[in-house]
């Protein structure tokens, strides 16, 4: 797809752009994934938001072994490894690392990098339930972040600048949603791999270029589809789908499966809701980013997310669910035990559970299990 090729080449030179921007005095604000960092706050003060979402490679995970024990989520250990290596281009370029503290694994990134590097870490809490006190706490956190961003850039984040940024980000979300909804048709007009590439691209690309790319893709798909496989339709869900961790997607598609929808706590930008235009702007941000979204697995109770997964499975008419998570993320491991029976009860659908420690050695095992699952649901 032409638009995707353009996006790829934009991403290939993104670091060069970022360095140039930095030389011109702009600030780079990195953040950890999870969907709880309102990029609008960063954009509104002229800084550039970068989500630190790379993964799939075991090398940084190994490096982290000098700073933390192994019983922490693989993706989070990878971030620690990148951060402490001293020569990672992304961790090396950020002026501030904002960390929405979602669970203990992300907290480990915050503490270990704060203690061992010179990167300025800005943690703020994301509660694990959607009550008013929780909303207030989240709002308090992003308000503190706003103040720090103003200090960092010397630019006041006015309501109008925020609304402008919200408009841009809403457009990005809207387009992602429209494109994603197209995949409800049979066959889906765009492969899971390509959709994920788009979603991932949005974490690093210039926001305007990203929106333009999405517009192009949307228009291209309306004209003619780049059809994905006609094979069994799959919902891919789990804890983290990192940029660079494409083994599962590639194996599923090579086996003839079609991933038509994804739901991940980390690595898939939430796009189902838009920030509301009216009322207090900060509250509107909190409302969209915290309240009106499917919660991740560490929310308690997790019923809302499980219901959302079941809804997705039905809306996208999938033949099976693949649950892909990384090692030691206990919230997901525990839920993966009782979710299959819930899924079966509500939809009759089967679920395949996969785990990874970003280890090459897993490749054959993953392939065998995925291929078997695809064959089973094909019939």
């Amino acid at each position: 797809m032409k638009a995707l090729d353009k996006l790829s080449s934009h991403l290939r030179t993104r670091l060069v752009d970022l360095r140039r921007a930095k030389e011109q005095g702009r600030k780079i604000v990195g953040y950890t994934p999870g969907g709880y960092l309102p990029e609008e706050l960063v954009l509104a003060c002229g800084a550039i938001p970068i989500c630190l979402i790379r993964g799939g490679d075991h090398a940084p995970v190994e490096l982290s072994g000098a700073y933390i024990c192994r019983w922490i989520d693989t993706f989070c250990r990878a971030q620690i490894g990148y951060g402490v290596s001293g020569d990672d281009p992304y961790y090396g370029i950020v002026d501030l690392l904002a960390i929405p503290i979602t669970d203990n694994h992300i907290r480990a990134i915050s503490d270990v990098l704060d203690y061992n590097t010179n990167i300025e870490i800005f943690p703020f809490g994301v509660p694990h339930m959607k009550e008013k006190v929780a909303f207030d706490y989240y709002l308090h956190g992003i308000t503190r972040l706003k103040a720090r961003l103003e200090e960092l850039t010397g630019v006041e984040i006015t309501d109008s600048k925020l609304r402008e940024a919200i408009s841009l980000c809403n457009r990005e979300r809207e387009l992602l949603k429209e494109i994603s909804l197209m995949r409800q048709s049979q066959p889906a007009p765009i492969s899971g791999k390509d959709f994920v590439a788009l979603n991932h691209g949005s974490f690093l690309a210039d926001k305007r270029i990203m929106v333009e790319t999405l517009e192009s893709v949307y228009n291209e798909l309306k004209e003619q589809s780049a059809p994905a496989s006609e094979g069994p339709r799959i919902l891919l869900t789990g804890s983290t789908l990192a940029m660079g961790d494409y083994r599962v997607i590639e194996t599923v598609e090579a086996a003839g499966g079609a991933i038509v929808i994804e739901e991940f706590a980390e690595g898939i930008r939430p796009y189902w809701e838009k920030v509301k235009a009216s009322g207090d702007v900060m509250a509107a941000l909190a409302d969209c980013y915290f309240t009106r979204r499917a919660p991740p697995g560490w929310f308690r109770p997790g019923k809302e997310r499980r219901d959302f997964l079941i809804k997705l499975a039905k809306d996208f008419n999938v033949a099976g669910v693949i649950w892909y998570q990384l090692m030691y993320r206990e919230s997901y491991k525990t839920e993966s035990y009782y979710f299959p029976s819930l899924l079966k009860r509500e939809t009759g659908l089967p679920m395949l559970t996969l785990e990874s420690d970003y280890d090459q050695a897993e490749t054959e095992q993953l392939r065998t299990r995925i291929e078997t699952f695809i064959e089973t649901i094909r019939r």
Partner: protein
Amino acid sequence: MIVAGVDIGAATAKAVILDGDELLAFSIIPTGFSVARAAEAVTEDALAKSRLSMGNLEYIISTGYGRRAVRFSNKVLTEIICHAAGVSSVVPQAGTIIDIGGQDSKVIGLDGNGKVRDFVMNDKCAAGTGRFLEVMAGVLGVAISEAGALSLLSREPCSISSTCTVFAESEMVSLRAEGKSREDMLAGIHKAMAHRIAIMGQSVGFRQEVVFAGGVAKNVGMKKALEDEIGLEILVPEEPQIMGALGAAILAKAELVKMHQAS
């Protein structure tokens, strides 16, 4: 003062006989099934070489995995402490000890006086130990004694990504099927292992002089791979395998001195 240090590892048993500061003899034998019998046999062997008998020994310290099963020892100390004493006697400016044995690996940090400052060890996972090398060399049909030298001939080390001995073995089989050279595969294995040791030791810190002890220290390929990883020169004592037993003997002498002073 005639003393002995006995180091019973999972793979090999070592004994060192000292007379004062003079090393009389040492012995290295496979541990085999019975730790207690190996302890006796290796000590007897070293004694025979020294033309002495058990009765001549005034103090014996045992160390290593099987230290508690040495019935005739007067005291038991860990191999960490004994290695520090042994290596420091041979390399007085030793700052760090890397000890890779058959079944475990350690990095020991020393203070300015040859005493242990900090240490870290891996005994849960075969991937950073002599066992790892053994298994991989086995896949290639190479004797472990030649594996290191062969690895130095590599021009393009393979990248071994598996972190587990079991999976690395399969990875090696695949690489072999792809036609990679033995030299390149061996170099890759040594590199992977050195990387693991370097990471493990980072929390202790590698400070000069870095000394390589244990059975694997005789592996020239491993020495080079470690030097590449930590960026420092590594010293290997003439008999790296007996450092633990030597240290145990030195500490045995120190115990005797203390006892004499007390009385």
